[in-house]
């Protein structure tokens, strides 16, 4: 008589219990997986696009714009290529070419901007609503980095004051703070520095209300590329570039000076005001001259202008102030 010995391996050890109990779901899953693989094979490129969108996923879209009386004239524009491949956006790496390579993962939709602090009622604005709040203007501005290089950029946006009016700040609000997007999983390069993220910047209320201060959505007539601070940023043309916070998620009204990122890092090098000022040197380099980006090296050097050439519009904001002390 043949006596079969039972297998020493129970079936439960071969297939996990939850899988054989749910074998129908497993089959369905396998089929879906196969279908997905088939679809992927058909549209591998499209799938790759969905999984890892290119930097200009939303950038490149034309924006409806109007002319602006506040645009800067008589300057040769810096090329789109240079404006989008020479960036300081340390959340995406410290080298100038890093943000163009790494900012692709910045999720620019959906996007909201929180309004909080000293306001009648905290609110949240959707990016689509912000885009429609006012006609978008083409505004060429000189852009002067604290590192002594400069560009001329055709931004697209409207005066920040138009937006701030919609926020209903209380009369006690004297300063406005801008907080940038921060997610250490999306912006893993941020840890290459010792900066306390998120990036924070701020302006005095009257600076923020000056018509030159631009709530910015685009450049060269197109939606901002991620590396330039998409989907919405501030541009303050008479201050060093780092004052113009990128990828803004919150606007906070305060009664005192907000902490700002570079000022926290090195208060002796980056003041709260940080107006472009050729007579106040950075401790480590002169601010008398600057290098214009995109020119051959023998043509780059040029004189830096007080308030970056916007003195007529903004000098009155600082009447009676010692700009050497309040640098």
């Amino acid at each position, binding site marked *: 008589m043949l006596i079969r010995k039972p297998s020493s391996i129970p079936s439960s050890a071969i297939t996990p219990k939850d899988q054989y109990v749910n074998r129908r779901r497993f089959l369905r899953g396998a089929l879906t997986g196969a279908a997905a693989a088939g679809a992927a094979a058909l549209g591998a490129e499209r799938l790759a696009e969905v999984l890892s969108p290119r930097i200009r996923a939303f950038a490149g879209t034309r924006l409806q714009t109007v002319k602006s009386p506040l645009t800067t004239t008589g300057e040769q524009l810096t090329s789109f290529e240079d404006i989008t491949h020479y960036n300081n956006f340390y959340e995406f790496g410290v080298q100038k070419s890093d943000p163009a390579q790494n900012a692709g993962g910045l999720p620019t939709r959906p996007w909201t901007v929180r309004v909080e602090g000293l306001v009648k009622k905290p609110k949240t604005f959707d990016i689509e609503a912000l885009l429609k709040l006012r006609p978008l203007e083409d505004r060429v501005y000189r852009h002067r980095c604290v590192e002594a290089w400069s560009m001329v950029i055709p931004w697209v946006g409207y005066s920040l004051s138009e937006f701030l009016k919609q926020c209903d700040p209380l009369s006690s609000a004297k300063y406005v703070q801008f907080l940038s997007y921060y997610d250490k999983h999306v912006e893993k390069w941020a840890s*290459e520095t010792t900066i306390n993220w998120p990036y924070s910047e701020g302006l005095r209320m009257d600076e923020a209300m000056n018509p030159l201060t631009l709530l910015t959505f685009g450049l060269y007539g197109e939606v901002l590329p991620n590396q330039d601070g998409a989907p919405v940023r501030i541009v303050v043309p008479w201050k060093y570039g780092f004052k113009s916070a990128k990828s803004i998620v919150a606007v906070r009204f305060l009664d005192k000076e907000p902490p700002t990122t570079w000022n926290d890092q090195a208060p002796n090098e980056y003041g709260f005001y940080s107006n472009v000022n050729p007579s106040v040197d950075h401790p*480590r380099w002169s601010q008398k001259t600057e290098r214009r980006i995109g020119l051959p090296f023998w043509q780059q050097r040029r004189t830096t202008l007080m308030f970056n050439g916007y003195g007529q519009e903004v000098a009155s904001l600082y009447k009676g102030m010692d700009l050497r002390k309040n640098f």
Partner: protein
Amino acid sequence: MKHSTVVFLKVLTWLVCLGPVAWLVWGAVTNTLGPDPTATITFTTGLTTLRLLTVILAITPIRRLIPKLGWLIRFRRLLGLFAFFYASLHLMTWVALYAGFDLNAMASDVLKRRFITVGMAAWLLMLPLAATSTNWAIRKLGGKRWNRLHKLVYAAAVCGVIHYWWQVKTGVLTPMTITIVVAVLLLARPVLALAQRRRARPVAA
């Protein structure tokens, strides 16, 4: 080592060392030095200097650890002169493209800006080393004194690293790699010397 091998390796060293400057010249001619050519030139010449200094500093510890590689010493002078060459190009970038040959601007830079002061010090420390690199100078000074003088390369490398740290923004850690390499190479000297002394110590009876 065979003469032909030495010649081959020397030619190779020349080609590798001329690479960065050739790349810069080509880039200047074709206008492909990136958006900020001045910064590209400054960064490339500075970083090449530091890299060559680390290669030079690596030679002695490597020879100590692997006596078979003793012939590496034959390349040190060439590498040292190339390091000085790049340091000088780096200095000239500042003189021409930053200070615009303005002596006042240069003087105030050196006095006021510590990263320039320490960078200038690094170049000045390398100057006598380049000047005494000939066989004639070695004979004239005598091996011992020449050796002692050329210890200045340690100070030059340290100044170069400090120059790098003081130039970048606070919170930026890019100079970390080269700092660690230089630190390891400098510390390797006393460590290896100690190990050697231990080995040489006679066993107590």
